[in-house]
């Protein structure tokens, strides 16, 4: 078997040097057995496995054995192959635990729906020899948007008036992308900071990872909209503020701020949502959008349209305010 892979690699990618030649897999059911040096063969195309992808949270690497980083031997392009892994787990959001299902079927359908739409990761899905739906994804050449924003070397005021309006414009376009999914009765399902990326070359924001599915609820879009709200608050603040990290983050003359429960997130009880208390130059209208995600909220956004109706005018307001402030 090793010889077969070696022959294949040398034929298709003669300049590629790898340390170990493994086996050829046409059935990906037992994805744990597929590792570095193996080749996944799908509909006549060959994908050499380089490694398992991993998710990093709280400094710990969590390997995703069903997600393989590969080289497509015929083209030399790097690809990510997501193999079929059904699991049900509780998605923790603050104190809530929501039953969540990993659905290759859903992700494959959305990939088809968003083909050619730059606001989403691109890819195709093909069945392996056992009918497992393998998703072959293009790699987004960029970095997480939250990391990009956090690393902008400016104080908040400077960032808010100079950089944020442009970021907000693009973010609104990302929200419209989510509305596009909702209009087609689909949800993203996992809108978190690490699932919106910014491409290096074009600066385009790109949503990734659509495989989370849920049991139906009366408002199927609530979860996505809450995700958009949390992301917006991060982008406006340039980072997360909690009751405990304030004095390290703000200027000394700003830290004497009285915070109440209602200033914090509805779900993440330690995250400050009422950013106007920290940065008084934030327009009231924008802060009101944030407050829809706070513990004091009585009215919630049910659609992306409602959210955008309030958010879109804020770009002009910030630009106007910038002329007065700077």
């Amino acid at each position: 078997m090793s010889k077969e892979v070696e022959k294949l690699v040398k034929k298709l990618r003669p300049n590629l040097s790898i340390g170990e030649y493994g086996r050829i897999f046409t059935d990906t059911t037992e994805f744990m057995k597929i590792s570095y040096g193996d080749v996944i063969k799908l509909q006549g195309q060959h994908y050499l496995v380089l490694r398992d992808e991993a998710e990093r949270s709280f400094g710990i690497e969590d390997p995703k054995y069903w997600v393989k980083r590969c080289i497509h031997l015929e083209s030399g392009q790097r690809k990510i192959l997501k193999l079929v892994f059904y699991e049900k787990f509780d998605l923790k959001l603050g104190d809530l635990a929501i039953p969540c299902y990993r659905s290759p079927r859903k992700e494959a359908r959305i990939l088809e729906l968003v083909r050619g739409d730059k606001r989403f990761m691109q890819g195709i899905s093909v069945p392996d020899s056992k009918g497992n739906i393998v998703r072959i994804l293009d790699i987004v050449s960029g970095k997480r948007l939250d990391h990009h924003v956090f690393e902008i070397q400016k104080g908040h005021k400077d960032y808010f008036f100079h950089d944020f309006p442009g970021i907000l414009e693009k973010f609104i376009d990302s929200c419209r992308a989510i509305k596009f999914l909702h209009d087609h009765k689909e949800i993203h399902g996992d809108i978190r900071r690490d699932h919106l990326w910014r491409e290096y070359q074009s600066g385009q924001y790109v949503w990734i990872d659509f495989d989370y599915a849920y049991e139906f609820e009366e408002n199927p879009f609530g979860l996505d909209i809450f995700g958009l709200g949390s992301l917006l608050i991060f982008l406006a603040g340039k980072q997360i503020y909690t009751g405990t990290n304030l004095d390290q983050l703000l200027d000394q003359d700003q830290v004497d701020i009285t915070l109440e429960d209602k200033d914090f997130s509805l779900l993440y009880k330690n995250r400050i949502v009422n950013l106007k208390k920290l940065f008084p130059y934030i327009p009231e209208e924008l802060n009101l959008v944030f407050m829809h995600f706070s513990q004091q909220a009585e009215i919630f956004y049910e659609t992306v349209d409602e959210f955008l109706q309030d958010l879109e005018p804020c770009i002009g307001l910030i630009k106007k305010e910038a002329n007065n402030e700077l």
Partner: protein
Amino acid sequence: MNYKKILVAVDASENARRAVEYVGEIIGSSPDFHVTLLYVIRYAERDLFPSEEAWKSKKRQEKNEAIDVLDDLYNLLIKKGLEEKTLKKELIEIEDFSIAQAIMDYQQKKGYGTIVVGRRGMSKAEEFLFGSISNKIVHYAKDCAVWVIE
């Protein structure tokens, strides 16, 4: 609208049962009222299941449970004194997202003057994320009274 034509929206929850008990207590054997128990069933999506068979089996199970719930609540109202000729049970299956909308559509189409729903205690966060059938009906129902039973 005929307010004595009452649509009681039910499911397998305890709060739905409370709503039915309330209706039974209020109406008892009064002959002027017509009551329909409506169970709107929205099946789990195919996406959640690895195979077609697993999905179909779950759907069968959900439907059987709904039929059992309807029978049980129907009998409860009979025990409370309602007569069979004034009582109906109905199961409808939907593919769209909103159960509340299906209940309101049914009410409009069949001319019910009262909708009765149970409400379970929901935190604000849950309401944001999942929505509330009873709240939606309170906000959007037309040409009828709405009873919300906590």
